[in-house]
């Protein structure tokens, strides 16, 4: 139990104070009852004791007088000792009563005991004279007369004692009666006081307990309300305000701190999510800008060819060739013109695989005119894929690259395979492959080339490949798979794209 626990108010302490309050009230009531009982019994005792004591004193005086009478009437010598003994006893009692009278003065009692003292003085004188008279040999009548006079005096005083005692008895009875009345009044007042105290005490306890209970329920209610509100809306700015200086206040403070911590963490999470969202938007924007850049580059490349001029020229030549009956030249010119038209019409568009393959075939046809039997071209096309959309000019540049870089050094026997394969039906993928049996590339060259394609740092000699790759990425996103495979003889470029007839 530390200092804080001792001095801090708690619910237990509050209830304990209530019990202590009850105990104090009960103790006060008990104390008052005890004191009142003690006082009442002592009052009764005092009133009756005094009377009994005076009665005893009166009996003692009577006993003394009895001895005096015996001595006087029968002149007995032996009675003197008894007389002295009785006197001594009476004097002790007189002294005791006088001492008590100093504390509890009553005029009648004092007068009576003083009269008794006077009586004893007179009887002493009488008894001494009687002794002398009994002992003396010559008994004179004068001595006798003196004794007789003293005896009369003593009896007269005894009469006063009797009168006084009657008065005292009367007074004491009145006093006892008065005491009884006073005690009765006192008892009534004490009863009223006790009942009043009891009522007051009960009211105080009730008030205190109701305050404590109200405090507890009020605190609990506040806490419950706060928890319910937080359940409804965790972002609500709620602080439980309890100043009960007990465990509820501690609990409320802890709850407030907990609400603060939770709300702070929620705000941080939300802020992080916003930041991430903004970052994603920025990234998309970056990709869009990059795409636009590539498109502009492509446009730039295509613009270099000046295709319209070339296309018109070829058409004119083809017409001329027909006029001059040069059919082969005319056919070649037409194919070339178709090839060029394809290039011009589909710029920046997606095309069907069939269109792309036809274009490749046109290109191959032109190249076969050029190289005759030097190169052979093989097409393996899955008909189901023909209607699929792909970006424009994907396969032809690959075939051109095979001729330009792979088979350029080969004077005969050069082969190029163009494959369009459906990898899985339904939601499957399409595999586009252009393979040659040319000079190929070393592994390190392939790795270097792949890195350049991925980092967009390719040199101008590989710009065609990089262009294809970037356009595929723009068209299919991350769903495109671009492979460069070193073959036993030659090189194979493989592209896997989703089977999406409508395109992206």
């Amino acid at each position, binding site marked *: 139990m530390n200092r804080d626990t001792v001095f801090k*108010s708690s619910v237990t302490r*509050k209830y304990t*104070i209530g019990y202590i*309050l009850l105990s*104090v*009230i009960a103790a*006060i009531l008990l104390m*008052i009852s005890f*004191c*009142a009982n003690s*006082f009442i019994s002592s*009052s009764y005792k005092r009133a009756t004791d005094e009377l009994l004591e005076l009665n005893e004193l009166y009996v003692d005086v009577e006993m003394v007088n009895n001895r005096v009478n015996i001595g006087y009437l029968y002149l007995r010598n032996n009675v003197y000792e008894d007389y002295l003994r009785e006197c001594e006893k009476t004097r002790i009692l007189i002294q005791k009563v006088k001492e008590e009278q*100093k*504390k*509890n*003065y009553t*005029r009648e009692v*004092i*007068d*009576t005991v*003083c*009269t008794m*003292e*006077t*009586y004893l003085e007179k009887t002493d004188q009488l008894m001494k004279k009687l002794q002398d008279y009994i002992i003396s040999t010559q008994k004179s009548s004068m001595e006798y007369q003196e004794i007789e006079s003293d005896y009369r005096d003593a009896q*007269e*005083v005894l009469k*006063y004692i009797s*009168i*006084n005692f009657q008065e005292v008895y009367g007074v004491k009875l009145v006093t006892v009666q008065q*005491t009884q009345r*006073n*005690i009765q009044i*006192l008892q009534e*007042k*004490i009863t009223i*006081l006790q009942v009043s*105290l009891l009522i*007051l*005490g009960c009211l*105080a306890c009730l*008030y*205190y307990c109701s*305050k*404590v209970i109200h*405090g507890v329920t009020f605190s609990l209610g506040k806490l419950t309300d706060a928890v319910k509100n937080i359940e409804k809306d965790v972002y609500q700015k709620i602080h439980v305000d309890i100043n*009960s*200086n*007990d465990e509820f206040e501690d609990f409320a403070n802890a709850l407030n701190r907990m609400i603060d911590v939770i709300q702070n963490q929620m705000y941080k999470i939300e802020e992080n999510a916003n930041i991430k969202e903004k970052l994603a938007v920025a990234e998309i924007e970056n990709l869009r800008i990059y795409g636009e850049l590539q498109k502009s580059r492509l446009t730039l490349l295509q613009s270099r060819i000046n295709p319209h001029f070339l296309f018109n020229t070829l058409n004119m030549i083809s017409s001329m060739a027909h006029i001059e009956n040069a059919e082969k030249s005319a056919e070649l010119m037409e194919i070339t013109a178709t090839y060029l038209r394809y290039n011009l019409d589909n710029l920046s568009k997606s095309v069907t695989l069939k269109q792309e393959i036809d274009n490749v075939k046109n290109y191959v046809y032109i190249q076969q005119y050029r190289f005759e039997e030097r190169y052979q071209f093989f097409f393996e096309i899955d008909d189901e894929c023909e209607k699929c959309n792909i970006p424009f000019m994907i396969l032809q540049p690959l075939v051109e690259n095979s001729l330009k870089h792979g088979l350029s050094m080969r004077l005969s026997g050069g082969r190029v395979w163009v494959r369009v394969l459906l990898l899985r039906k339904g939601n499957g993928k399409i595999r586009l492959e252009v393979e040659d049996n040319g000079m190929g590339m070393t592994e390190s060259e392939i790795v270097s080339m792949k890195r350049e394609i991925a980092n967009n740092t390719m040199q101008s000699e590989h710009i065609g490949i990089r262009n294809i790759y970037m356009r595929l990425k723009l068209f299919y996103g991350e769903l495109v798979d671009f492979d460069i495979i070193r073959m036993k003889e030659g090189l194979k470029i493989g592209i896997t794209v989703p089977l999406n007839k409508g395109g992206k």
Partner: protein
Amino acid sequence: MENMNKKIQCIALVIMCLSILYFGVHMESVEKMKEKNMIRVSVVLPHSDDGYWSNIEKGILEGEADYSDRVDVQIHIPQLNYNIDQMVELIKRQTAAKVDAIIVQGNENKEYVDALIGARNQGIQIVLVDTDILIFPPHLYVGTNNYEAGVLMGEKLAEITGGEAKVAVLSGEAGYANLQERCQGLAAISEKYPLIEFIRLDYDNYDGLTVMNKYNEIHGENPEIDTLVCVEGTGGQTLGAVFKEEQSEYQNIVVFDITEETQKGLKNGIVDGIVSQDTNQMGYQAIKEIVKYMDEGKYSNNCIYTKTGWIASETIEEEEAYE
């Protein structure tokens, strides 16, 4: 809540203190403790009247009230009015009880004086009120200067009668010095007014029946008497109560002591004037001097005279207003 705890604790404490205080005070009042070593004073009055000795008693009780922490007074009255034997008995009883002081009226009766001497020999203070005992050893007298009161009465009688009257004097009882002194003072004016003649002196024994008996007896035996002087209170009281003006056999009646009856007589015209005594002060001064003696061992003076006055029909209303 903490404040509330403190408040409740304070209230409980206050209630407890008040209870204890109330209880203590109440117990104290019930206890009614008296002071130790009280001065026990016994008063032996000659009789219980309504006006004179009752006023002296009242003065004594006022003195007791003023010195309540020191003086305890007990009043004793004989069963028979002015019964010397009973008064002697009472004095002896107080002597046997060894009281501190006895207040009594003086009387020249031997047994009475012997009883007082016996008490004085035991160290008891003897205070005589109203009437002194000239032969008594040094003591305290508190009361009227009776000789001067007699002279005053004579002077006023001369005024009323024009210096010429045949006077009968009705006194209380033989052997009372105060009455003797009053008579002496009254008689002294005959030197100044020779035509005022004192015909006879009678005693009413402080008894109304005797007063009436003497009233008739005087008139019957001495019809020439035109003025009746009562030098003791009972005479005036009786005449004031019984007679109307037209019934009076005497031209002039002068009495002692102002009481309800004497005032009534004065209003009715049966009484021509009253010599008043300050009886209340007699009782009060007696107590005051007893306390002084206990404190200082001596009185202010062994003879303390209280005031006397003259009340006539012209001044009765003023006197009543004063009272």
